């Protein structure tokens, strides 16, 4: 007779009930479903993997990591809100199933095999959370702990990757004869690097190769690592570690989550652990352990989740806001923040030469950089993973809105001198980067709505027309299209200030114009 499992109980499926399908099937076995757990009857049904993922999430939030912070809020209809304190901050009571980012984002990282950085003060569960992910992948707690890399100031490349065997070093006639004792963690499906900002810069570069290219190299010997989810932790990601984290390594991180403070109202949970002498990571229910093939299948299913055009357009519009820096380039294509950065230009001077745009309205003025391709890809993957986790086949705008701040956390650098941050109501966004990023996305969506781009997007129409292909398009039609593009450019540039989305639209129109021009030349040569 098993004793009560205080920590191993799983939420009853489904954890996210959906409207019943129209075709109904009643199961007589429901008669024996109830609070008493019966022995398996050989009729255990395979759960869909999204359900398994949700069960893993709910087990972790209910029994393992005490993180009662529902900061990923979903609403189904109106929600109750309260204005609290002198600052009149909003306390929202979400009307739909909401989640704790500190658990959910690492879990989505596990499902998509991406790279997650935990930041936050000591003792807030960063390492414990990473450890749990290792256990979910089927390793024992001991294995995960032994394979975990602990960053320290004396860490060498050999410490990180492996040593040549001493006997071979003496006897070998060539490099090929030297065998390498690779570190065990390189073969793990969940890789954990604790306090990565304490690793010396040279060793960080070796780590970068493993993180970026998934192989390790020592003395011309290569170790190909399996696909893995990565978890890194840092007490302070703003330069407070022993060494500065190299930019490229930081850029490899797909998502950043912050460990929030412990709420003493949950002290009884800690007391229970003390009294029962249990560690949740040692009691992970076998039902939520994922095999390698299951994670493969989940990854495949996540990639199949669709992003509707309407949602994609909003992301395009948002991403368009940030790269333009009008005074940085003489040529149209080079008017970007990256041009200014590469040249090491004085940003203040360049801004002073700006031509009087509405610097409050222009979201691009709030950041020092734009959004990279890698970041956009991570954003789409996490949005898909979020939709999959919620049991949906398509990404909703809210899915994108919820994951966006965590993906852009380390990527989109705010400009503290921007007028936006000088407004008293925005002062908190100087330190609350997640809140600022979410606000940024909301402002972008407001602008999208104001421009009515869902219904009136002439560049989108021209682009869709081009996407249908050029097969059979006559010269006359080509000329008509070229004419439409030129007219649209003339119309869009007439007396307007240049904002990010317009800049990208103009570049897109230029691209289309060029393609049609080439096609017209080809037609004439036939």
């Amino acid at each position, binding site marked *: 007779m098993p004793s*009560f499992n205080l920590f191993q109980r799983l939420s009853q499926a489904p954890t996210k009930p959906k409207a*019943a399908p129209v075709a109904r099937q*009643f199961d007589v076995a429901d*008669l024996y479903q*109830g*609070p*008493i757990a*019966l022995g398996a009857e050989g009729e255990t049904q395979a759960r869909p993997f999204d359900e398994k993922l949700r069960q893993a999430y709910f087990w972790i939030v209910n029994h393992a990591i005490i993180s009662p912070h529902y900061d990923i809020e979903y609403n189904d209809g109106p929600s109750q809100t309260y204005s609290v304190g002198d600052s009149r901050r909003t306390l929202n009571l979400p009307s739909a199933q909401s989640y704790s980012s500190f658990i959910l984002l690492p879990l989505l990282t596990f499902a998509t095999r991406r790279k997650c950085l935990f930041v936050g003060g000591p003792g807030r569960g960063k390492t414990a959370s990473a450890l749990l992910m290792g256990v979910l992948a089927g390793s024992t707690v001991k294995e995960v702990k032994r394979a975990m890399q602990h960053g320290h100031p004396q860490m060498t490349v050999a410490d990180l990757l492996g040593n040549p065997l001493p006997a071979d070093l003496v006897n070998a006639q060539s490099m090929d004869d030297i065998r390498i004792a690779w570190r065990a963690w390189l073969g793990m499906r969940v890789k954990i690097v604790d306090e990565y900002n304490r690793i010396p810069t040279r060793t960080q570069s070796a780590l970068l190769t493993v993180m970026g290219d998934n192989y390790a190299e020592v003395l011309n010997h290569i170790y190909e690592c399996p696909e893995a989810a990565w978890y890194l932790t840092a007490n302070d990601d703003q330069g407070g570690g022993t060494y500065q984290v190299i930019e490229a390594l930081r850029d490899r991180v797909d998502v950043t989550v912050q460990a929030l403070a412990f709420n003493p109202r949950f002290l009884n949970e800690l007391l*229970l652990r003390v009294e029962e002498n249990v560690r949740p990571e040692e009691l992970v229910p076998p039902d939520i352990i994922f095999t390698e093939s299951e994670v493969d299948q989940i990854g495949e299913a996540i990639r199949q989740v669709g992003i509707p055009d309407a949602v994609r357009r909003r992301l395009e519009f948002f991403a368009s806001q940030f790269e333009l820096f009008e005074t940085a380039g003489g040529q149209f294509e080079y008017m970007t923040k990256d041009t200014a950065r590469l040249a090491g230009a004085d940003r203040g001077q360049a801004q002073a030469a700006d031509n009087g745009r509405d610097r409050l309205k222009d979201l691009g003025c709030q950041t020092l950089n734009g959004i990279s391709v890698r970041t956009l890809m991570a954003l789409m993957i996490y949005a898909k993973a979020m939709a999959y986790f919620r049991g949906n086949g398509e990404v909703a705008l809210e899915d994108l809105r919820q994951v966006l701040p965590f993906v852009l956390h380390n990527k989109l650098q705010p400009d503290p001198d921007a007028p936006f941050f000088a407004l008293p109501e925005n002062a908190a966004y100087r330190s609350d980067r997640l809140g600022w990023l979410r606000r940024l996305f909301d402002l972008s969506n407001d602008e999208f709505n104001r421009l009515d781009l869902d219904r009136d997007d002439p560049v989108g129409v021209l682009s869709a027309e081009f996407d249908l292909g050029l097969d059979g398009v006559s010269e006359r039609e080509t000329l008509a299209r070229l004419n439409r593009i030129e007219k649209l450019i003339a119309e869009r540039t007439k007396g307007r200030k240049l904002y990010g989305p317009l800049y990208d639209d103009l570049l897109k129109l230029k691209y289309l114009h060029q393609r049609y021009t080439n096609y017209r030349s080809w037609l004439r040569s036939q």
Partner: protein
Amino acid sequence: MISPAFASVLASGRAQFNGRAAEARRRFPALDMAAFGAFLHDGVDPLVLAVAAAAPERVGGVTLAAYDMALELVGHGLAGPAAKNPFLNTVWRELAPLFAPLLATAPVDVLGMLSNAAIHIASVAGARPAQWQAGMAAVAPQVGSVAQLRAVGQVLAWRAGVAHFRQGALAAADTLPPALALAAFDEPGAQWPQVHAQLLDYPWRGNAEGREFGSFSGLGGDFGTPPQVRATNDGFIVRSAERHYLLVADAYGAVLHSATAQEYEQATTGMPSSVRLDGATVHVGARSIALDLPAGDIAIAANAHTLAITSPWTHAIRLLPLA
């Protein structure tokens, strides 16, 4: 006072039993130890006694299983003097001891199945828990295995009014020895293949009158406004006070499930050619049934076996067999 047999087992494992109770109190902060004590006396003791008589060597194991389960059930507020529905107490006290030989071999399965089934049946509006208990008690001497207990419980749950279990229960009945299956249907002299075929063909076998379902929610019924009904293959989609339901009915009972507006829109209206409404009288083939409803505005929906009759003047739905 509990029986000496039970007291002796509790005394022999006192530390262990106390430890389990302490652990359960952490898991169920609302666990009332007085209520648990009362349930031990009222619900656990009789079955421990019954097992002591049938298989004395298994008393320890059965007691341990029953004790843990009792903690869980009382912790959930499902058993004991403060239970929301007393049916579970009755099942432990009166029904479970009848399965003592089976309890001795598989205490967790038998007690778990009986408990879960009792909770389930008690939660289905319109089901008749007492009938299920009586039926189970009647067949108890013939039940020789956990599998048979499982199947016979399902069959009797259907017969006790859980109408949506019809298909599954018929399949379960087929796994039973014919004598036991016939006993479950209270037709000991019949031929099982024949009974099975009739049950499969006709949901209203043995009930020519049909049944009336539903009443005003203000009086404890199901519908806030007089319901409107449309037919589907599974039953009828009902709309009342902006809410939608699926009504599944047969000879043994009628059960309401939640449904959606979309399902209501997709369901069909109208009646078969064999049905004719003449004022307040329905003609089904050669039969004529006078309705105690005002003529006019009477609505009829029908599926393959059943006619559902509603009127804006009543919250009840009349369900009539079509054959």
